């Protein structure tokens, strides 16, 4: 029974981080209608950035949030402005060019990082990386708890931003109906650029928060991109609330899969869920709750 609670806790905590990843991606999907297959790679870049700040500047990862988030925001903006926005005007047989472009970007990012850091596994060990505390026989990882806390904070901030600020509302407008929004004076191109930046910043936060309890190597982007779209599909495209549910669900599924079936299956779990959702619940949670 203790194992059950243990797994549950681990799943929820990780799920909080996953939610952060998912929100970024679903925002991008909702606003731009593209699937950012470089999402995990952006996270990877943020993790390397965090690593560098930690080892060379001696900064605690949680402080690095202040650097990694704006940093990746900028990267996202640059990518959208110079590589993705122009695609909207390019005439081609295949509409999936944007998706393909993100694949290319992902590959480039991975290889650049590999070039700089080699393929070695890196990690960041802080004083609290391995620390745990106990509540009723169940151990909680300190690092994950703090990460969860930050993730919740950022999520709440995101919601506030989307609902209360002008920029946030413009983003939602573009997500709903680009033409109508443009007619009302919203610069769709600028909004798209901002959105990719935002999505990148969020996933950067997830990366930075995750690093103390995870390991880092260039190819880590791929699995996280996959997790990101599993979460997004689970939650329903464009639904930020859905992304939260999706994130936690995936976190739980992976935790239970790892505990009760076997470590090998962690990745498979996500994929299987993905396919099941595609088959049986194409709208994701969003469809169920109409949020």
């Amino acid at each position, binding site marked *: 029974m203790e194992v059950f609670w243990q797994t549950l806790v681990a799943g929820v905590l990780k799920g909080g981080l996953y939610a952060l990843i998912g929100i970024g991606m679903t925002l991008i999907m909702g606003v731009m*209608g*593209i*699937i950012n*297959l470089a999402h995990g790679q952006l996270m990877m870049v943020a993790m390397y950035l965090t690593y560098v700040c930690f080892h060379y500047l001696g900064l605690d990862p949680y402080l690095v949030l202040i650097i990694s988030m704006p940093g990746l925001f900028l990267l996202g903006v640059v990518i959208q402005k110079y*590589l993705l926005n*122009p*695609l909207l005007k*390019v*005439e*081609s*047989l*295949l*509409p*999936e*060019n*944007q*998706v*393909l*472009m993100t*694949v*290319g*970007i*992902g*590959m*480039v*990012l*991975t*290889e*650049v990082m590999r*070039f700089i850091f080699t393929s070695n596994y890196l990690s960041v060990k802080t004083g609290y990386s391995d620390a745990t505390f106990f509540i009723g026989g169940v151990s909680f990882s300190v690092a994950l708890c703090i990460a969860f806390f930050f993730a919740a904070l950022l999520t709440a901030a995101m919601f506030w931003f989307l609902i209360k600020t002008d920029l946030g509302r413009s983003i939602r407008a573009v997500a709903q109906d680009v033409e109508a929004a443009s007619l009302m004076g919203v610069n769709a191109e600028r909004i798209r650029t901002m959105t990719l930046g935002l999505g990148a910043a969020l996933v950067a936060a997830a990366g930075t928060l995750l690093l103390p309890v995870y390991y880092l190597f260039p190819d880590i982007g*791929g699995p996280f991109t*996959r997790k990101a*779209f599993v979460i997004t*599909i689970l939650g329903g495209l464009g639904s930020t609330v859905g992304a939260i549910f999706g994130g936690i669900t995936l976190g739980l599924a992976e935790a239970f899969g790892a505990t009760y079936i076997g470590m*090998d299956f962690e*990745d*498979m779990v996500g*994929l*299987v869920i*993905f*396919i099941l959702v*595609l*088959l049986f619940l*194409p709208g994701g949670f969003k469809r169920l709750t109409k949020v």
Partner: protein
Amino acid sequence: MIKPRLNHLIVLLLLILFPLVVKDAYYRHLMILVLMWVTIGSGWNIIAGYTGQVSFGDACFFGVGAYTAGLFAHKLGLSAWWGLALGGFTALAIAFPFGWICFRLRGAYFALATLALNEVFRHMATIWESLTEGMVGILILQTFVSKVPYYYIALALAVASLLTIELVVHSRLGYYFVSIREDQDAAESIGINTHYYKMVSLSFAAFLTGMAGSLYMNYMGFIDPEVVFSLHDISIMAILVGIVGGVGTIYGPAVGAFVMVAVQEVFRTAGFGALRALTRASGWSFMELVTKYVSESHVFTFGVLVVVVILVMPNGLVGDWPKIKRAFGLGRSRG
């Protein structure tokens, strides 16, 4: 039905004569790869370029074909050539559930689903050790020592793929495929059973790619899940071959195959050793570094290639040929 054109026949003749003229095993190997990619690229082109369903999961068919051949030899003790004959059919069998799962989605979600299936297959092949030997892979004895027979089989396969596309494109099937690509709803309302024809299109792709997979098994003698179900080396390579050459054109994949294998090799060998020679000639140690990094960066180049091609040449070398000619000042200017 098929009008043979002079330049095609000349190219075919050159290809047939190639192994008789070129004896170097290395270049023969490259050409075999090119021909294999012509087949895979053509398969992808049918489902993606002509029918508009962009698949990121062709490695599923390749891998299934490869394992069919491999397992015939490994488990049943029969010649792996049985696999060549049947590889296409097992891939075809896989195409049905594959299509069933993925075709209910459109556009980018279809692409995602194919990608997910690709990864599922890869994982399953790795985990299901009793069937596939997992990460250990399958090793078989190759039937021929010389590369020449493999070359001609690859050539036959490539020619067959191109002929297939040529036939399909000008037939009722071809019209139906393109209609689906252009507007699936309009296609339905003029009586096209889009679900059925998408499946047909996928079947072609699966069969061709599966055959290529079996050929690979027979030729290379060794496969494992990472190699044959690889997302980047097979599925995305197939897409690149299609895009660089030209989607929706008959000979696009052929051109693309040639270019992509060439690019891959140029980088892997640092300009076929030219950079190395330059290093030695110039004696600059800096050149040594450059050589080393160039030879390790072929994935990086692929990434850059994707980005550049999509931005500048989305219809590929064949599709954007007029644009390219103009860029080099070779075309007629449009007034």
